[in-house]
């Protein structure tokens, strides 16, 4: 089975940031540089363990969990500490650890007002544990605890270090997401009581998947339970029309908050669909797939139109997230292996690209102290050529230029939509595909228009003499891995697809679709 360190690897990587948060909490407030170094140290250590896991991962194994640990946790309710990692979780897990590490580096230089570095980093580390934990949890209750764990840090990160409308954005995020999660919990409880594995109920995701694929859950129950989990996951993704918390939260959050929100948190919702909703409630998934596809198609077009109307640069990027997640959800809704692979690729690509976009916008705001496109005026390329270049690069990656990371997720999503699963209406999904195509054009439109208004044109008077520094070392250090990843994933998508394919085929076999 597992050798010694394999038992500990995932738990160490997941909980090391939590330990770091405690250590930082007890560090004296005055030792500011020490606190920042500790942040980098703990996230870096977690990332190293994550990379070691990725290296030690058996890529040829296909299905099945690796680095698995399954021990008692709360016997009185039947919840176990069951963690593991497979081809679906691995890319997202490493993405989480990597983005958190880069945010910690970024925070070495940029801690927004009102300062309070200790709390800022401690909350980031706590958030990292919550996010990383959701991707490796294989017990419904364990999953739920990690899922909810992210609420409080994000609430405080937005509410304290955000911009003008931060408190409204923070409470809206908290209550909206919580509302979905509690219904998800009720659905989990329903699944528990309806399951019968070796004569007992179970919260174990693997066992529930097998129980479901052998027809264990009745159709009516599945439909009702799917509503519950749908609410929880759809609000997190966010799917249209449950997306209204996102523009506020992402816009008002501090830079690292936006990066982690867009880069990782949204993926928790789509991951939940892939890991829990589809395999455990397959009949309901087939029933609801057309609706999900429809909402996804609407999201793609709606988000693109909304982006065209935005005057605030950060809000524009935030809405672009809704559109990208629309592609991911469309891919998932097709219930095909291509679709799921596309979804996971799209998730990782979006995490890298949009995380990078928010870093850029954060740096622009740091220099110009405004996010209004009209006020920026243009000429960013002239004034800050490095920043302008990076910004253009990432924006073009986001709109899906072939050769960069954003392309594969979108094109595979559309491809899977052309040929959805047997049980689904092909004509309907091809209509969604067309809508997705229109969305792609609109996406290109708003990104290019944004670049034109911000990067090109003449530099306004007020900025001509301003002493604005170009990209500094800290920024280069925290951005370089992402920029390289964008190119690497675009040129060599097998980096992700090679990892996910085995596990996805395994999952779809269970699904029987």
């Amino acid at each position, binding site marked *: 089975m597992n050798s010694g360190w394999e038992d500990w690897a995932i738990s160490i990587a997941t909980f090391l940031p939590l330990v770091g948060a405690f250590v930082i909490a007890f560090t004296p407030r005055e030792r500011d540089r020490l606190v920042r170094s500790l942040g980098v140290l703990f996230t870096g250590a977690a990332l190293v363990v994550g990379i070691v896991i990725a290296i030690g991962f058996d890529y040829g194994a296909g299905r099945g969990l690796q680095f698995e640990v399954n021990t008692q*946790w*709360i*016997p*009185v*309710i039947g919840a176990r500490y069951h963690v593991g990692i497979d081809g679906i979780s691995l890319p997202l897990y490493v993405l989480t650890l990597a983005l958190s590490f880069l945010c910690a580096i970024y925070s070495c230089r940029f801690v927004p007002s009102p300062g309070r570095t200790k709390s800022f980093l401690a909350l980031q580390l706590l958030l990292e544990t919550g996010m990383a934990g959701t991707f490796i949890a294989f017990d419904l209750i364990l999953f*739920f*605890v990690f899922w*909810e*764990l992210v*609420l*409080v840090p994000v*609430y*405080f990160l937005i*509410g*304290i270090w955000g911009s003008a409308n931060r*408190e409204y954005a923070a*409470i809206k995020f*908290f*209550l909206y997401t*919580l*509302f979905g999660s*509690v*219904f998800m*919990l*009720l659905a989990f*409880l*329903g699944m528990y*009581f309806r399951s019968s594995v070796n004569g007992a109920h179970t919260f174990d995701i693997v066992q529930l998947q097998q129980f479901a694929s052998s027809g264990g859950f009745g159709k009516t129950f599945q439909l009702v339970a799917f509503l519950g989990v749908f609410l929880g996951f759809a609000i997190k993704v966010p799917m249209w029309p449950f997306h209204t918390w996102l523009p506020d939260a992402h816009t008002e959050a501090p830079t690292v908050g936006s990066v982690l929100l867009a880069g990782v948190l949204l993926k928790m919702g789509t991951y939940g669909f892939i890991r829990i909703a589809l395999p455990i409630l397959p009949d309901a998934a087939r029933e609801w797939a057309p609706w999900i596809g429809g909402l996804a198609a609407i999201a793609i077009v709606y988000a693109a139109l909304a982006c065209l109307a935005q005057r605030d640069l950060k809000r524009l990027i935030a809405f672009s997230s809704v559109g990208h997640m629309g592609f991911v959800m469309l891919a998932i809704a097709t219930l095909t292996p291509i679709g799921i692979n596309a979804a996971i690729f799209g998730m990782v690509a979006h995490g890298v690209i949009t995380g990078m976009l928010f870093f850029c916008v954060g740096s622009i705001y740091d220099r110009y102290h405004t996010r209004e496109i009209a006020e920026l005026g243009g000429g960013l390329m002239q004034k800050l050529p490095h920043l302008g270049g990076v910004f253009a690069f990432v924006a073009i990656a986001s709109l899906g230029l072939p050769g960069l990371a954003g392309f594969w997720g979108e094109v595979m999503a559309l491809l899977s939509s052309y040929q959805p699963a047997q049980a689904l209406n092909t004509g309907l999904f091809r209509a969604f595909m067309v809508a997705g195509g229109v969305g792609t054009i609109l996406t290109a439109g708003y990104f290019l228009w944004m670049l034109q208004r911000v990067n090109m044109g003449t530099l306004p008077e007020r900025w001509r003499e301003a002493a604005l520094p170009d990209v500094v070392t800290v920024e280069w250090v925290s951005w370089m891995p992402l920029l390289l990843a964008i190119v690497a994933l675009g040129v060599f998508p097998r980096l992700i697809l090679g990892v996910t394919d085995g596990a996805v085929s395994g999952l779809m076999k269970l699904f029987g679709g």
Partner: protein
Amino acid sequence: MRIDYHAILPELILSGTILLVLVADSFARPRRKWVAMPLSFLGILAALIAVVTLIGSHRTTFNGMFVVDNFALLFKVFFLSVALLVLLVSLRYFNDGRWYQGEYYFLLLTSFLGCILMPSSRDLLMLFISLELVSAPGFLIVAFRKSDPRSNEAGIKFFLFGVLSSAVMLYGMSLIYGVTGQTNLTEIGQSLSRTLPQGQETVVLAAILFIVAGFAFKVSAFPFQFWAPDTYEGAPVPVAAFLATASKAAGFAGLLQLMFVAFAATAEFWTPIFAALSVFTMTVGNLVALQQRQIVRLLAYSSIAQAGYMLLPFALVSGDQAVNRAAFAAATTYILIYAVMTLGAFAVVIAMTRESPSLLISDFAGLVRRAPVLGIGMIVFMVSLGGVPPTGGFWAKFFVFTAAISRGGLGPWLAVIMVLNSVISLYYYLRVAREVVFVEPRVERPPASPALVTGVAALATFAILAIGIYPELLAHFPPLSTLAGP
């Protein structure tokens, strides 16, 4: 009749302490009146030790009126621990020369005597005595600030509501006696499980309603909750803490014994009523709490809403014994965790009373910077009361959800309503947390909080987080409490 003295040893010790405190107060010099508190503390410790010696035994005395079993012992340990904590936070509050300190401790301990009698009371008369013993001193200590009109108002409201409910409850008890000829709960249960003549059945159902009304007052359930906000606000804050935790828990302990033992046979009749009570209580409590600007009133309405959550398991009782056990365990666990959270929140409030007697929410501005222990504690308590992991409050709600979903029928709908209420409640709980964290403090120096109070807050914070991360800590209690309960 032989009296089992070991069984009533904790009560005897506590009674002795009460008399000792009264006598000590008469002879103590004015500046030394605070000595009543350490005396009370030691007496409670002694009673606690006596309870510990009883663990594992099952004793009956006074002809079956007084029973010591795991359920009773669990609640006795709980009440005595709460008593210790309430004493700790009361010391400095009452020691400022204007109060009748000795009398306060005397009355408080008498009320706690009623509290520890309650879970052992398996007889209608004993229940009534215990309930009155909890309430009567309460009337007095609520009105302790004699010169404050709000305290007087609080006392009068509490008193009038209290005696009215007691009268109605006693009438109901007499009707039950009339029909069954019994006052012992188990025997009433057996008597009612036989079919009764039509006229008598109506009388029994009416009597159950009357009795429930009496206990509903005690736990501040709708529509008997109107006294709570004014009483909590007018009373001295440690007294409000006592009312919100021990007094309410005592009411629930009595209600658990009544509904699960004596009236289990007629469950079909009263479970819908409890469902309605639960839903209305939680909804009214949460909706009105949204409007509150004063922390004690907010905690009062929060307690009302929490009582609604605790009433939900009562609505799940049916013929299915497994579900009944789960519901009983859920209710008991919720009561215990709720008391820790609320006591902690009140401890933080008591820490602030010296600085800002008005106790508006805005007075807590920036508390996390001024006094990190108190600030973080308050955040943990608010988040826990709302039911967010990884706090104890989440598991308390989780057990109730589990019982409700496993019941089927009405259960999942009640769970949905409770879930919606939790989301609503977080809006005002986060408002407090927001004030503590986001707002800039108006004064930089820490509040003049007594060390004991900060210690109690820290202890409660630790307990809530410990239960939240490792709920197995409580796992041994629910099965134990159901072993000998129903």
